[in-house]
């Protein structure tokens, strides 16, 4: 019987572009197609699969600039500012992370993407406006080069049930 890991491995390289893509995946797993639908829905409801859909290549579509913005906030302000940033359409990821003062005082990270440098800078300025005086210091780290980028995959070494 195919495990959840088998199922994810069979799907993660991508659904085939044919009229019945799930039937093809199910055949590879040697399970019934309806069983595959049921188990995919189950993995979505448990959160193992966050979503199913196309994964766009931002860079190719024109989003050439990405900035990691980092913010030093008082502990009591992090949740409120994080939730505020998390609601902005300009922000694609927003996380709280640990600090290492004095060299790394930033506890909130927000990723901002844009087609031009100006667009990114405008988005960053609007975040600065939102956070106001709660931010003690902030930096913007532009990406110079993508050195490696692969979708998060289950690989052959991870045999435990996802």
């Amino acid at each position, binding site marked *: 019987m195919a495990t959840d890991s088998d199922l994810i491995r069979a799907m993660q390289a991508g659904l085939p572009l044919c009229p019945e893509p799930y039937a093809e995946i199910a055949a590879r797993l040697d399970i019934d197609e309806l069983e595959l639908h049921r188990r995919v829905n189950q993995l979505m409801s448990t959160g193992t699969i966050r*979503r199913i859909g196309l994964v766009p290549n931002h860079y190719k579509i024109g989003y050439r600039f990405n900035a990691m913005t980092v913010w030093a906030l008082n502990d009591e302000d992090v949740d409120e500012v994080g939730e505020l940033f*998390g609601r902005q359409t300009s922000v694609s990821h927003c*996380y709280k992370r640990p600090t290492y003062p004095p060299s*790394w005082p930033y506890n909130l990270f927000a990723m901002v993407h844009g087609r031009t440098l100006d667009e990114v800078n405008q988005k960053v300025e609007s975040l600065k406006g939102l956070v106001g005086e709660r931010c003690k210091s902030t930096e913007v*780290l532009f990406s110079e080069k993508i*050195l*490696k980028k692969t979708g998060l995959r289950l690989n052959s070494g991870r045999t435990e049930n996802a």
Partner: protein
Amino acid sequence: MLDEIDKKLLQHYQRGFPILARPYEEIGGQLGLPENEVIERFRRLSNEGLISRIGPVLNHSLLGVSSLVALAIPLDMIDSVAEIINSYEEVNHNYLREHYYNLWFVVTARSAQRLDEVIREIEDQSGAAALILPMEKNFHIDLGFKLWQSAQTS
């Protein structure tokens, strides 16, 4: 060039891709297109590299333990250190950024012990002390990436 239909396909099907026998026919029904045109458009967008794949996006936290890691590496050593970092299958992102801490990568391992081991090995081989920055809280609900204002209506 992308037309409005391409934009809708790219924007609206980052999530909620149908889980049924003929998903492309279902999408065609939603957009008023025949099934074969939906497939042909996805094929063209894939061939042009605008789509990496159509498939599941997995939840990191359920697949293992992960952390963002940053290193400060002298510019003339970037290539050799990046090669070491990228050689780990546990590393799925690695960016060069404009900062004193200039190498930023994500390590996802099957256990906390393996995560620690990978980071220590990279520190040993690069001679740099790592900033280890695991996510403590996520404030963004991931609904996919908003590409165009104009294709938003659905």
